[in-house]
């Protein structure tokens, strides 16, 4: 496959100086993610996956090592340049959705475009936000506020927000952590659909069930990569949902 990697991590290290003890959260991770990949970053808590994710997401800088995002060396950028990288190259999806309350779905999705260095006309902002919402299957509820939406719908809004600046990378941090199992599968279906359209996704999770929807699993332990392999028996969200419905039907018939 080989175009240039979206993510190229070379011996990334992160050390936190807390009090007298230095905490080595990430100890030398090297990883390459190519366009069109769908990677699950797994590990127990304390494995360093959140720290790694913050660095991949340009929220934090590594203590040592080199990180190229889409060819740009992110490890040396200053605060403002990091903000611009986050704005243009990365779309975030969080566990807790992190939508602005009392702000409509449409305005939430438009928000990243406010900070785009290239001015986007307001009608174009609206068009792009609407088409992003359409893409995640929320074309009809654009003027609802987050508290009027279910968890799954809120996460779809968050995904639309992540997509709206056409990032090179979609970065999801436990995106199904706050959702029930059926909604989780639906959301994974959204990710699979986006990945089929060529969007590169890196997802942090600790659930194997969720990781099985991805194409590649990277497992971290104690700040190091211990396994990195393609997913065997990959789950397809549509098939899973079909099975779930059949099972529910069976329960109904049985009762």
């Amino acid at each position: 496959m080989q175009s240039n990697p979206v993510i190229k991590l070379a011996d990334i290290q992160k050390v936190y100086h807390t009090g007298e003890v230095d905490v080595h959260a990430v100890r030398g991770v090297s990883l390459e993610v190519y366009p069109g990949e769908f990677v699950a970053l797994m590990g127990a808590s304390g494995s360093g996956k959140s720290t790694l994710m913050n660095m991949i997401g340009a929220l934090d800088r590594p203590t040592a090592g080199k990180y190229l995002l889409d060819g740009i060396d992110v490890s040396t950028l200053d605060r403002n340049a990091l903000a611009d990288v986050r704005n243009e190259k990365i779309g975030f999806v969080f566990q807790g959705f992190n939508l602005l309350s009392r702000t409509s779905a449409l305005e939430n999705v438009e928000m990243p475009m406010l900070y785009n260095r290239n001015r986007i006309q307001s009608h174009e902002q609206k068009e792009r936000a609407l088409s992003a919402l359409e893409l995640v299957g929320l074309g009809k509820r654009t003027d609802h506020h987050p508290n009027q939406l279910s968890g799954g719908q809120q996460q779809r809004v968050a995904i639309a927000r992540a997509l709206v600046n056409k990032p090179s990378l979609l970065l999801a941090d436990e995106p199904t952590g706050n959702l029930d199992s059926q909604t989780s599968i639906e959301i994974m279906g959204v990710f699979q659909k986006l990945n089929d359209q060529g969007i590169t996704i890196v997802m942090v999770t600790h659930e194997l069930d969720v990781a099985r929807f991805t194409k590649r699993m990277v497992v971290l332990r104690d700040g190091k990569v211990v396994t990195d392999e393609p997913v065997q028996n990959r789950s397809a969200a549509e098939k899973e949902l079909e099975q779930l419905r059949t099972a529910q039907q069976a329960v109904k018939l049985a009762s």
Partner: protein
Amino acid sequence: MRIFASLRIAARALRRNKMRSLLTMLGIIIGVGAVIGSVSLTTGATKQVEDQVASLGENVITVFSGNFTQGGMRGGWGSAPTLTLDDAYAISQLPHVVAVSQEVRDREQILANGLNWNTQVMGESPDYPQILNRSIASGSMFSDQDVRSLAKSAVIGKTVVDQLFPGENPLGQTLRIRNIPFQVVGVLAPKGFNLFGQDQDDIVIVPYTSHMHRITTRTFLNDILVEASSDKTILQAQNEITDLLTARHRSKEPDFTVRSQADLMERVSASSRAMGFLLAGVAAVSLIVGGIGIMNIMLVSVTERTREIGIRMAVGARGADILVQFLIEAVTLSAIGGSIGIAGGMIFSWLIASLKDWPTVTPTIWIIIAFISSTIIGIISGFYPAWKASQLDPIEALRYE
């Protein structure tokens, strides 16, 4: 980030906490309102005083004779016999002098119609109404001919009319001063009380010659009223009169006093300047108090919205974007507060004006000053909280509960 988008975000944030926004603004509202209100009232009052000073006549210079001192008793201005008719004539020949009235004053018990009344009887020249900016309501002023012929003509004020000729037309009637009959030839238009609380209508005016020869037997004037040609020449005229009289009287110490309206105006504007400083002090204190209120609430708001700041930073807001957002919020608060305060102050002063019959004027410059300074207060007091927000670490902010 666009200003318009920032304004929208700010407006939304302020609407979300209507009550809190209002209470925060209250400091600025009250401060600005108090300043605008008191400025309006004092400016109105000052203007009224200035109008009254102007109504004393235009470009008037008064020459008083010196004070008379005898055996340690000092008689007050106008008591010494130093000003003569020749002095008055000499003054009238000065280049910047357009009118002169030789004034002699006396209080007399006057009789008419079977009634009597104690009032000020003034000897004046026919220029008197012109110099003091008074008009004749009915009849006419006596003439130069009347002055030459020591005519027994009198022009009287409204108070005298009310006291001696109630419900009658006084023109052509006779009043007696020291038993000498004078005929009423004119009535002055009423003018009310002057700055010093004297009733300007309680007055009888006769030709100064008649006063000096028929009523009293004086050869000296109490004072001389002079009108200068314009407000630009009044000081020059004042100096010329001083020089002229100094030369004529050849006295070591000046035995006369020259005062002009310019002196009075100077005192009025000095007092309004002092008032202005006082108000500026009150304004500064109240704006600082209001500003502290805004800073306090903005700090609370930044803490409350730490997570929102984290989200915005995660999607690519720079520190400067966050700074501008909070700064605009603070400025919106203070500018709206300032505007409400301006409107409130104007309404307040207008209410007082209509209830108490006080004149009120709100100078445009004060409206501009009030608005600009409340905006600046917003910037100053919003800056620290906004800067604090802009320095937040996005990871920490996102984790904040």
